[in-house]
């Protein structure tokens, strides 16, 4: 070993020692996996920390990766030895599947590697009802045969019945049991396909665990474009539900 190597090794060792002696926030965990219950509106993660150094740490910013997540600190300053937590609240909204949201925390730690911490909240959101397709439509003048929307209920939700309501009387909706135990077939049929009509189908499961309501849409498309705006001919009356269908109990 020559002098150059010894010097380099010394620099590496001193750097490591300097980093070890510096005050910093020690996080209990920087990643949290959550499994919200069916119908939950929010998922909340708690990220606990402790100042393991001997000087206070200040939070400079706490920034969530999307508008659907908020993050709150208990204190702006963390004294040596003090513990605390950052609470991240994820508003689920209409999201489903695996959702990964991050919260970036910046402190006044002079070392950039320690000054920024990314906290990760992972939530597995199981939908109560999977509806496919969310839209059935007929071309103008097409034969008004029924089209099927499949609604697959979550096994844990114990859904035995679906109520489907059309927002206009231009469509009828009838619910039948599907091929699987938790499946429903919604038969949607227009009364007439010679005029452009639109209806929202409100799908209400009889689940005891949630009062969630789902939607699909049915349309008869306008005739091929002419000089007049076709969108204006679409009748859309959400306020007066006209046709209601209820599924047979399973």
């Amino acid at each position, binding site marked *: 070993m*020559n002098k*150059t*190597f010894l010097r*380099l090794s010394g620099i*590496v060792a001193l750097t490591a020692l300097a980093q070890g002696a510096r005050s910093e926030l020690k996080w209990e965990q920087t*990643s949290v996996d959550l499994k919200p219950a069916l119908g939950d509106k929010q998922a909340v993660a708690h990220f606990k920390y402790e100042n393991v150094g001997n000087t206070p740490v200040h939070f400079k910013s706490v920034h969530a990766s*999307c*508008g*659907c997540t908020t993050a709150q600190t208990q204190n702006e300053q963390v004294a040596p030895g003090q513990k605390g937590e950052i609470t991240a609240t994820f*508003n689920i*909204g*209409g*999201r489903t599947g695996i959702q*990964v949201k*991050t919260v970036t925390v910046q402190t006044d730690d002079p070392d950039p590697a320690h000054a920024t911490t*990314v906290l*990760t909240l992972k939530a597995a959101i199981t939908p109560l009802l999977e*509806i*496919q*397709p*969310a*839209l059935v*439509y007929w071309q103008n003048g097409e034969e008004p045969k029924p089209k099927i929307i499949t609604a697959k209920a979550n096994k844990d939700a114990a859904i035995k019945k679906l109520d489907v309501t059309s927002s206009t009387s231009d469509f009828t909706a009838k619910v039948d049991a599907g091929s699987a135990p938790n499946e429903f077939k919604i038969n949607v049929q227009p009364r007439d396909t010679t005029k452009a009509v*639109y209806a*929202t189908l409100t799908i209400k499961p009889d689940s005891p665990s949630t009062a*969630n*309501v*789902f*939607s*699909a*849409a049915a*349309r008869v*498309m306008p005739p091929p474009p002419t000089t007049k705006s076709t*969108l204006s001919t*679409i009748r*859309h009356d959400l306020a007066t539900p006209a046709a209601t269908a209820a599924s047979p109990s399973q």
Partner: protein
Amino acid sequence: MKVSAVRQALLLIVLALVPAIGEAIYFRNKVSWQSPVPGSELVTVVQARSWGDNVIWVDARPDNEFERDHIPGAILLNEDSWNELLPQFLGQWSPEKRVVVYCSAQSCNASREVAKRLRDEAQLKNVFVLDGGWEGWLKLNR
């Protein structure tokens, strides 16, 4: 002397590799900022604008950002209020038109998620994601 320096450099690289490998293993599930989008689903502002009136713009940003400003004629459809907004969008959708979804910027993911759900749940075709998002559109239009 030269050989010795190379050997020492290699030794230091190996020493640095040990914690690097450890970090790579520890953070193997680290979030990627963007889910991969096939090139065929991405569309530039210039391309989308060249489609003229045959485009339905979909704004996947939160309500307040949409209310502040949006691409003229855009329809609000975000996952915060998916069940409420989807039927409104479907009432204005047209099979002849292309759907272009955008969110705030290049780094946001909401447009990709909304585009995917429109393809999967509503089974719509011709759904694209705007490269650069709202910021990209602003750069070329303001």
